């Protein structure tokens, strides 16, 4: 790690830091236990909400917090809860712990290291909008998170913090812990609901199946992300405006970002939302401490594999939702992947596309066939079998999945997965066309990038789930 990379931040040289409101127990050995949680102020917010606030007051604090959902779409939580039709019961809360967007790494840590904080947030939400039951859906591959949550729930039940007449009040609600079995698409909220009903995890058409009106068992349902709900104890204890003030004007609170790839110290950081810039995250010693071997950033993915890529001209953008949206990408699920100047862009592009091809649920033809085609074309380019017309073909196929390659995408498919597969192509081919052409002509990467020949058997189409 070198210190000479840390000067000259665009915001006056200051690297904003803030209190740890989500990750405060991550370093502590027993932060995940009931005793560790209660000792550090746990469950005070739940008692406060249940005994001193009305459900409407809790909802008002969440509205005042202006917290944007942390699952990817960034929709304000308070507003979403407001979409529930009045007087239609039962209604459900579904907690999305399916974290599988490539680059994303924070919900698993929140579940493993602070499961009670999530449980407390869940009960607060259920109280605020009158949920009859909550379903905590964890990704299937996360054995430790499942174990920690099961233990935490058993302890919370035993201490009268979940279940019948919580904290001696007349509010009762159950949390059912369950998990998936390997399918990225189940992270999409309507697919998650299908999966919870015991079906294949295929998205539903919106409209009419907006979860808030026709969700789980066709009842009104709120789907919220793990990080979103983990913020609620702080919001109830400190107030919505105090949460809001931690972040920038248009992106409130603290937010967790995972920065991976070619940085000296990849890590998961809780930063003031909307203020910190990408450059600060990559370079400051309190965060990633610079790009490896002091190289330059060639490209980075700002918000998970679905996002359009950014380049060096975007380094000084703050991690602020409207700013990043306007620059043509998204912050998505807080997943930042850094690629330095030695990165093979063709291979990087292919690898992200292969993900979408493999994870397509197969319901819509443009996505199922299109993503498979895109993967095959890129794969043949990488193995030295590319054809001159392949780059045009890539765009032709992309057009059929995402007309105009617009951002946000114009939807011809049921869900945004199909159009997401086009992001790496629109990003990499437009910017690094010469690298693709070089592969087509010479069967290998341009000089100066790390060239690793393709692994046999690495091609994958949309057959995994179909």
């Amino acid at each position: 790690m070198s210190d000479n990379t840390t000067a000259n931040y665009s915001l006056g040289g200051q690297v904003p830091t803030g209190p740890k409101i989500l990750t405060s127990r991550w370093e502590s050995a027993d932060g995940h236990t009931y005793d560790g949680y209660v000792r550090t102020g746990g469950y005070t917010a739940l008692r406060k909400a249940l005994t001193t606030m009305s459900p409407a007051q809790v909802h008002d604090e969440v509205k005042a917090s202006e917290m944007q959902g942390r699952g990817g779409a960034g929709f304000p939580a308070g507003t979403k809860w407001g979409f529930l039709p009045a007087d239609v019961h039962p209604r459900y809360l579904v907690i999305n712990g399916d974290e599988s967007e490539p680059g994303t790494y924070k919900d698993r840590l929140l579940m493993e290291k602070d499961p009670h904080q999530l449980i407390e947030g869940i009960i607060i939400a259920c109280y605020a909008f009158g949920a009859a039951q909550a379903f905590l859906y964890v990704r299937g591959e996360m054995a430790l998170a499942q174990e920690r949550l099961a233990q935490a729930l058993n302890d919370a039940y035993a201490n009268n913090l979940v279940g019948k007449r919580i904290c001696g009040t007349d509010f009762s609600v159950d949390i059912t812990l369950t998990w998936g079995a390997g399918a990225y698409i189940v992270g999409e909220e309507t697919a998650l609901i299908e999966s919870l009903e015991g079906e294949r995890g295929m998205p539903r058409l919106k409209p009419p199946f907006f979860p808030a009106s026709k969700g789980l068992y066709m009842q009104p349902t709120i789907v919220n992300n793990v990080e979103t709900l983990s913020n609620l104890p702080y919001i109830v204890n400190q107030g919505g405006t105090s949460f809001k003030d931690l972040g920038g004007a248009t992106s409130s609170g603290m937010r967790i970002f995972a920065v991976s790839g070619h940085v000296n110290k990849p890590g998961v950081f809780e930063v003031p939302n909307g203020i910190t810039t990408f450059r600060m995250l990559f370079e400051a010693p309190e965060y990633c401490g610079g790009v490896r071997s002091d190289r330059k950033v060639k490209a980075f993915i700002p918000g998970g594999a679905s996002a359009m890529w950014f380049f060096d001209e975007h380094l000084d953008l703050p991690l602020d939702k409207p700013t990043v949206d306007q620059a043509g990408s998204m912050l998505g699920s807080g997943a930042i992947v850094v690629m330095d100047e030695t990165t093979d862009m063709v291979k990087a592009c292919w690898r992200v596309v292969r993900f979408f091809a493999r994870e397509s649920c197969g319901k819509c033809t443009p996505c199922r066939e299109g993503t498979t085609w895109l993967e095959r074309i890129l794969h043949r380019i990488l193995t030295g079998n590319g054809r001159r017309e392949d780059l045009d073909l890539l765009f032709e196929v992309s057009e059929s999945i995402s007309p105009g390659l617009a951002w946000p995408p114009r939807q011809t498919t049921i869900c945004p997965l199909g159009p997401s597969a086009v992001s790496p192509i629109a990003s990499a081919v437009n910017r690094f066309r010469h690298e693709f052409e070089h592969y087509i002509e010479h069967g290998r990467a341009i000089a100066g990038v790390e060239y690793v020949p393709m692994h046999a058997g690495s091609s994958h189409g949309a057959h995994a789930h179909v």
Partner: protein
Amino acid sequence: MSRFNDSNVTLAKEIIGRFPRPKSAVIPLLHLAQEQDGYVTRDAMSHIAELVNVTTAEVYGTATFYEMFKFEPIGKYCVNVCTNIACQLVGGWELLEHAEEKLGIKAGSTTEDGLFTIEDVECIAACTEAPAIQVNYRYRYKVTAENLDQLIDDLRAGRLADEIPPHGTLARVRQRTTDTWANTGIEAQAKVDAR
């Protein structure tokens, strides 16, 4: 082969009771079947169908959507190497190749002694710890070729048996349905269904 044994039938009924509708328990019960037998047998799927009152075809339809469910025996240890973008950038593919050489099999297959299966998997949410792998869904971070060799030797010698149960077992702590279970969701849904 292999319907649920008696204690798993009891457990299955308890799991079904946690959902307003029985079919919601299909995926948890498929996991239970895989825990019992190491993979999901046809008989287990029929048994699940009986328990939640749907056809075996419906259970099969659901099961085959999800990559974690295996329909024939696989290795006692399933080694999943992530090759997605963050791992690819720092040597995920090289690690996969190393695993293949070490075990003498290709990704997607199982060693003859039935001990190991290798899979080339998508992002496992450990991107800042890349290259990352899982063995039976337990993580190993920043894995080098030497780490991997050691890990495989340890598994072979049974040295990690406490930490890593055989394929099929996920959480070793189960949620209990206690007498403080409120049942609000089920009662409320029953009222709606009766409308």
